[in-house]
């Protein structure tokens, strides 16, 4: 049987996503075998900083009876000596039963899958894909509402934000309508817009949060990175106009949920945390059951 990898949300069809989310819900309600991956080892190869993704994968394997290995800091691993990723992957395949990888280069996880003899899970490759984040985003939406035909707003850095790209692709399978708001130069890439519209997805661009807040079901906020702006003044200027506040949410639908892949910086006013709309910490917590379902999918 061919080794199963999870590289891109685009490799999934809708029924495969639904099956995985159903499994995650079952795990979430504590109905799972705690020794399902007993004796199995997960190698965590994180060539970029990560807190949530890495810890939730480590938590997920531990809750299923397995253990994890990691390289520590990138500076301490053989990549720092000039080893190719291909060689690293070949070597680590001999130490573990699956590999979860985060890498700064786009397509790194797909390359890893070509050289690995064990399953590879992509935990983010540059500005590319981050399928486990997308699955937990969808899971969090589904906790509040059926995903079908909903209005989802993506705001922030939509050009380089991999979580926004992956989520938009997945939502095209659910006939969702997309609303976007991003600073000039940080819009969704044209190639992605073309791909989504060719699948029949409606995309509405907006000039302010206020003009769409009353029509959307999900508000997905992404972090804007200061280095994308020419100077601090222009960053703060844009960041303040994209800030989510309780006042802004007063015009929202009652069931609107606010999501953020975290970490947040200035995008969401801390006062929103107490609002019934806030779901971003729940979303982060959902990373564990969703990643448990993913690990069981590829390692069993």
């Amino acid at each position, binding site marked *: 049987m061919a080794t199963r990898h999870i590289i891109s949300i685009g490799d999934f069809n809708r029924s495969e996503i639904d099956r995985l989310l159903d499994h995650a819900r079952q795990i979430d309600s504590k109905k799972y075998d705690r020794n399902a991956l007993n004796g199995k080892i997960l190698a965590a190869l994180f060539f970029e900083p990560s807190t949530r993704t890495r810890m939730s994968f480590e938590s997920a394997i531990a809750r299923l009876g397995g253990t994890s290995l990691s390289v520590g800091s990138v500076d301490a691993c053989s990549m720092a000596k000039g080893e190719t990723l291909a060689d690293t992957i070949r070597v680590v395949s001999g130490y573990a039963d699956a590999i979860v990888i985060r890498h700064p280069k*786009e397509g*790194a996880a797909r390359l890893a899958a070509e050289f690995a003899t064990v399953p590879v899970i992509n935990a983010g490759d540059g500005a590319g894909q981050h399928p486990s984040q997308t699955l937990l985003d969808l899971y969090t939406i589904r906790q509040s509402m059926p995903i079908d035909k909903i209005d989802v707003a993506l705001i922030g850095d939509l050009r380089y934000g991999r979580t926004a790209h992956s989520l938009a692709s997945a939502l095209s399978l659910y006939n969702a309508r997309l609303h976007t708001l991003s600073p000039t130069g940080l819009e969704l890439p044209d190639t992605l817009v*073309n791909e989504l519209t060719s699948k029949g997805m409606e995309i509405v661009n907006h000039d302010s949060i206020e003009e769409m807040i009353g029509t959307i079901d999900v508000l997905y906020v992404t972090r804007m990175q200061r280095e994308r702006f020419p100077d601090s003044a222009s960053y703060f200027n844009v960041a303040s106009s994209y800030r989510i506040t309780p006042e802004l949410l007063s015009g929202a639908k009652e069931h609107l949920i606010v999501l953020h892949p975290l970490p947040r910086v200035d995008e969401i006013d801390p006062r929103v945390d107490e609002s019934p709309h806030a779901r971003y910490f729940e979303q982060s917590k959902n990373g564990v059951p969703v990643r448990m379902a993913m690990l069981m999918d590829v390692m069993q």
Partner: protein
Amino acid sequence: MTHTGTADENERLLIRRIRNGTVIDHIDGGEALNVVKILGITGTTQEALSIATNVPSRDMGRKDIVKLTNRELSKEEVDRIALISPHATINIIRNFKVCEKKGVEIPNLIQGLVRCPNPGCISNTNEPIQSKFRVLPTGLHCHYCDWVITKDLTSYII
């Protein structure tokens, strides 16, 4: 009286018949040098290579022709040409006779031919891989990073 000749006669004056090899005809006008590039033919090639550009053509207005002696192109090589000149025809010549005549088909996958324009793509590093693109109606999709090339393909030929 000056003899001007027909288009065919002029063409013969431009490039001679070859005994053995491949004639690539009906190349879109101006694309011959890119065809040569796509075939990986460089200045170090030993065999005779003839190129005619902007030859008058009844069907195409103008066309290019490439004649390559003592080398018969494989199907994979031929199909690469379809990416830039889908109307090209290939004639395999043996002892001055056309032994095979075929069109070109756009391949589903091209490997090692085009560099991914995305500087952040893993295929632009020292990894032991060749670039790989899926050929779809929307353009050439990088197998690794999903970047899509929609125009200026020839500027990315390795």
